[in-house]
Structure formats: C-alpha cells, structure tokens
C-alpha cells in the first residue's frame, strides 16, 4: 500500500497531528481554567486542520481522500510516533508533551520548508499557525519550570519526543530543548511500533464511522 515514499512522509506527519489533535481535543471542557480551555481547543483544532491539509496532499498521491486516510486504515497502518499516542489526561504531562512536540515539530517544519515544492509551501503555512502554539507552550513551560511534576513529565516524555524525529535531526532537538543527549539517543521511542493505547483510541475514534461504512455524514 505504501509504495510511495513521499506519501509515507506525509502520512507520518498527518498521523502525528491527527492523533495529537485528537488527544488535545479531549481537554475541551475540562482544562484548568475556562480561558485556557478555549485557547487549548483552538490548538487542537489547528492540529486537526494541519492533519487534514497533509492528508489531502497525500490523498492526491494515493488516489484517495482525506477522511479515508484519516479514519479507514487499521491501527497498525498508522505512521504516527508513540509520543502522540500516550493517554496523558493530567495537565503537567499534557503541557510537557505540547512543549516537547512543538520543539520537535519546529525542527521538522524548518527542514521541510527548505524544499521548494508544495509541501514546503504547506509547511510554511503550518509554521505560521504554530507561532501561537509555541507562544502558548513556552508561556506554560516558563510557569511550570520549577514544578516537580512538570520536570518529571518532561524527563519521562523525552525519549518519546526524540522519536518524533528521524535520527539525524535528534541532536538538533537536544540542543534546542537543553536536554541531555549524552546517552546517544539510544532510548528514543521512534516510529515503527505503536503503544497499546492506540488501539483503544482508534476504536473510539472510528466507532461512528465504522457503524455505516461508506455513508455520508
């Protein structure tokens, strides 16, 4: 199915954004303050929006459509990084993931923007919208810097964050985040295997859609 290397690349990023957006949308209604709830929901929607744009690009390569790619693959066929699959329904972990993911995503996007194709153009658009995500993540990270729960969450998620990027870009992430790469990044949880949480997420995410395959909604 994935004969197309370019399509795989697009799907990997799209899957990251879809699954993380799905996780982030879980906070709608239950964030620490109402003001934060509204802001965080915008971020989740942006991520789904990015996923959609990337799926649409991939769909053209694969002769499919965005919804089919987003929802009609089996869990094992998703190409997302394990970081986004983790179920982290507490604020310290959620912000740790947001912060780490934005740093990794920025490295990835900058890399993509150096190309001169349609994907570079889309990456530039995504990058502009990500300005708000970074502002938000940094704002929270600054406040939580001295909070032990946050530090512990960042340490715990660090190997997963590395796994968002291919090997050659990991040192750059370590440089930016100021976290140690001295153990040679050997512990990174990279793409290729999925967390058990993905199965449950997928079942919930596709429950309605699977109830009437091919139907319009």
């Amino acid at each position, binding site marked *: 199915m994935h004969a197309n290397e370019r399509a795989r690349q697009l799907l990997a990023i799209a899957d990251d954004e879809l699954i993380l957006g799905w996780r982030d949308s879980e906070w709608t209604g239950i964030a620490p303050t109402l*003001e*934060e709830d*509204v*802001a965080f929901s*915008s971020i989740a929607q942006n991520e789904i929006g990015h996923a959609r744009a990337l799926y649409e690009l991939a769909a053209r390569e694969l002769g499919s459509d965005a919804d089919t790619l987003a929802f009609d693959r089996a869990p094992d066929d998703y190409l997302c990084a394990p970081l986004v699959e983790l179920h982290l329904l507490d604020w310290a972990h959620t912000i740790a993931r947001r912060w780490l993911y934005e740093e990794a995503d920025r490295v990835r996007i900058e890399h993509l923007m150096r190309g001169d194709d349609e994907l570079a153009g889309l990456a530039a658009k995504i990058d502009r919208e990500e300005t*708000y995500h970074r*502002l*938000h993540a940094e*704002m929270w990270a600054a*406040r939580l810097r001295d909070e032990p729960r946050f530090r512990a969450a960042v340490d715990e998620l660090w190997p997963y964050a590395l796994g968002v990027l291919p090997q050659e870009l990991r040192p750059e992430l370590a440089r930016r985040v100021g976290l140690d790469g001295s153990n040679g990044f050997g512990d990174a949880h990279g793409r290729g295997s999925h967390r058990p949480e993905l199965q449950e997420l997928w079942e919930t995410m596709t429950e309605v859609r699977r109830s009437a395959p091919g139907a319009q909604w």
Partner: protein
Amino acid sequence: MPVFEVFRQERKGQPFAHAGSVVAPDAAFADAWAREQYGRRGESTALWLVPRDAIHQVTDWADEFDLKYRRVDGYSIKERLRIARERAGTAASRDR
C-alpha cells in the same frame, strides 16, 4: 488572578470597543487567552488588554446651571433667519 479588560477593534479605522474581560495571572496569559476568546473567528483586527486596576471610571457630572449655550439644542435661529431674509429680499418661496 487579576481581571484584564478587553477592547476590540473589528476593522482598521474603527474605534476600540469594550468587549469583555479575561481572568489571567499576567499580560502574557491574558494575550494568549484573549486572542482566542475574542479573535478565533477573525472577528477582530486588534485587541487592547488593560488590567482592570488601570481603568479609572468617571460617572457623575455636576449639572446645576443651564449649559445649553454649549450645545446645538441651545440655539433657535428660525425666527431671526426669517426676518433677515425678508430684509435682504432673499426669502425663499419654500420655508427653510
């Protein structure tokens, strides 16, 4: 947490109008939160965020003596204008 009053400008050139308020620990959070609460639909071109404490409200004025001389409703020129036109021979056939 302090209250930040939000003033929004819908389109360039229009006045900033009070739109509501957000409760935030500091200006950075107020910025991050107000921009989504008052701008996620592209309905604002700019926001002013002002700590409530910085706002000084004025609500009463003394109004003891006749101030009509400062206002349009303090002037009734109709009668004198009519006489002036008659004298100048410029009275219009239609009442102005």
